[in-house]
């Protein structure tokens, strides 16, 4: 029997048992829908990681202090870095292009119109280069402004929007915790949030100014900085650079071999990936749900096909008596199972796409809908149909025509 004929025979048989067929495919529908949501989220997460790494630069390392865990106990306070250390490392490590320190303080911004609570970060003039940060309006401060401790401020896009509205903030006078500053630039929006905080709700100011005027000095380390960013030459092995940096820092901070580090070095790739761990966990859960649904759904298909073979034993006998080969019977039932699964797969695809869109709007996870999702849905349901349809189809094909004809 030709494939086309087998296909129509299968459709006809399924139509005769419409409701039963639909219920049978429920497991497949749920399974395929889970697969689609999973792949859409996985693709979306991968795409967003790639985009962020590309934008932030794959050759940047962030260093910040951490408490040192020793004998199971967290010991001491965060040990800050010093500018001296940072510049020494810049000279020592061969592939460093630029560095910037970072010291932050919570401030209240007072402008002519309104007050605004935000974070001010003291950084070096190299910050736009190191962090790949564009200035949308006005200028960033220069190296001399940092050394001389000028009270210049470059504000984030959120502050421009919320405090100054449509009018450019460049040239405006503001007070940060009662210290007067002049706004000289506005940063381009990054559109990111980190740990629930808007990355554009920030003010950048010269490092020395922030430390002296806003963050407060700390006597043991007069030139302290909270964290450091190292930009390396493109194309170097970032993991090797990270190892070198860690070794140099351990030496600088007098950490004995065997002792734990009291700092952490993160590459932005790992940084960004860590942020996507939640969506990854969710993907694994969905994968498990998809696997179980497809297994249960497949067993459902197998069960209903076995019922169908039993119900139609006489039909099978008749078909054999009028010339159907075992292969024809086998193909007929296999196609029936595959068609059943594919119908379920297509319904599941539609449900999965709907679910993926619902999740982006609820969880703010990026999804990526690709044409390949359709192929994944079809191939997966085909595979389930073939795997679970095989046994019933073989049962049908192995019937003896005489017994099948006589079956009541």
């Amino acid at each position, binding site marked *: 029997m030709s494939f086309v004929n087998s296909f129509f025979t299968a459709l006809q048989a399924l139509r005769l048992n419409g409701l039963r067929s639909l219920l049978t495919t429920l497991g497949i529908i749920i399974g395929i829908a889970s697969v689609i949501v999973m792949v859409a989220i996985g693709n979306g997460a991968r795409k967003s990681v790639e985009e962020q790494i590309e934008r932030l630069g794959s050759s940047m390392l962030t260093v910040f202090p951490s408490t040192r865990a020793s004998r199971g106990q967290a010991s001491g306070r965060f040990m800050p870095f010093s500018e001296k250390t940072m510049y020494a490392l810049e000279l020592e490590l061969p592939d460093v292009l630029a560095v910037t320190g970072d010291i932050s303080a919570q401030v209240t911004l007072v402008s002519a119109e309104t007050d605004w609570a935000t974070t001010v970060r003291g950084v070096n003039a190299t910050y736009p280069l190191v962090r790949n940060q564009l200035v949308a309006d006005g200028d960033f401060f220069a190296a001399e402004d940092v050394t001389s401790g000028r009270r210049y401020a470059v504000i984030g896009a959120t502050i421009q929007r919320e405090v100054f509205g449509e009018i450019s903030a460049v040239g405006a006078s503001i007070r940060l915790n009662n210290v007067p500053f002049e706004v000289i630039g506005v940063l381009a929006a990054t559109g990111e949030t980190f740990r629930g905080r808007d990355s554009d709700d920030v003010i950048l100011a010269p490092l020395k100014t922030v430390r002296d005027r806003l963050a407060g000095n700390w006597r043991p380390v007069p030139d302290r900085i909270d964290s450091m960013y190292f930009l390396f030459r493109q194309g170097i092995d970032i993991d090797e650079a990270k190892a070198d940096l860690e070794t140099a820092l351990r030496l600088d901070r007098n950490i004995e071999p065997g002792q734990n580090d009291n700092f952490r070095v993160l590459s932005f790739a790992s940084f960004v990936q860590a942020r996507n761990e939640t969506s990854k966990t969710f993907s694994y859960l969905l994968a498990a749900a998809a696997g179980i649904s497809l297994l249960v759904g497949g067993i459902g298909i197998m069960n209903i096909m076995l019922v169908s073979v039993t119900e139609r034993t006489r039909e099978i006998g*008749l078909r054999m008596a009028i010339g*159907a080969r075992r292969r*024809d019977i086998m193909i007929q039932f296999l196609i029936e199972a595959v068609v059943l699964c594919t119908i379920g797969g297509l319904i599941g695809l539609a449900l999965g796409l709907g679910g993926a869109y619902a999740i982006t709007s609820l969880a703010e996870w990026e999804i990526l809908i690709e044409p390949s999702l359709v192929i994944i849905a079809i191939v997966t349901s085909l595979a389930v149909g073939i795997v679970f349809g095989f046994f019933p189809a073989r049962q049908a094909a192995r019937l003896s*025509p005489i017994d099948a004809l006589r079956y009541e």
Partner: protein
Amino acid sequence: MEAVVTCRELYKIYTMGGQEVRALDGVSFDIHEGEFISIMGPSGSGKSTLMNMIGALDVPTTGSLRIAGEDIATMTPDDLASLRNRTVGFVFQQFNLLRRTTALDNVKLPLLYRDGSLDEAKIRAIEALRRVGLEDRMDHHPSQLSGGQQQRVAIARALVNNPKIILADEPTGALDSQTSEDIMQLFSELNDHGVTIIVVTHEQEVADLTRRILRLRDGHIIADEREDLVA
């Protein structure tokens, strides 16, 4: 006339509950092309077994059986399927039509298991329905047809591949006597056009309408009566 069925020392032996059952116990006969023959016998006589063999649904334990010149002992399952498809047409007591499928599609069914276009299959199926006088009912489902009409559809299905042999297993068993006569009349007409008809029955009245009666009992042929000899 050429022999379309040649049986020589045919044995079919089953083991049932440790006991040997000889369903066919050394049967030899020929059926020639164009014959209209009935195989008679009480239940357990081996007539169903014999029918299954002639229909290539079953193979003998020993002995030789040739159908349309081919030795079925040497045939693969696919060859046997092809033989059932092209050389033999089955007619059953319970008609065995597919419910919820039109008369036309039922008749077309054997053509789907051989090469050929769907258009050609439709033309041949309509022609077969015309031969049994049901071309105006081709869009009816079996449930919309009388028993006699259903059996005619089944006969059309058996005819559609122009088989050498039509093998009918108690074809009138589910029909009233008038309809039975009509069906036997139809067989007789088909036989006049050269189709070999083999009817398996336990009814003497049905057998009397054929031209040769082969009587079986306990796996043996006990009589082979021909019309020309009887008359």
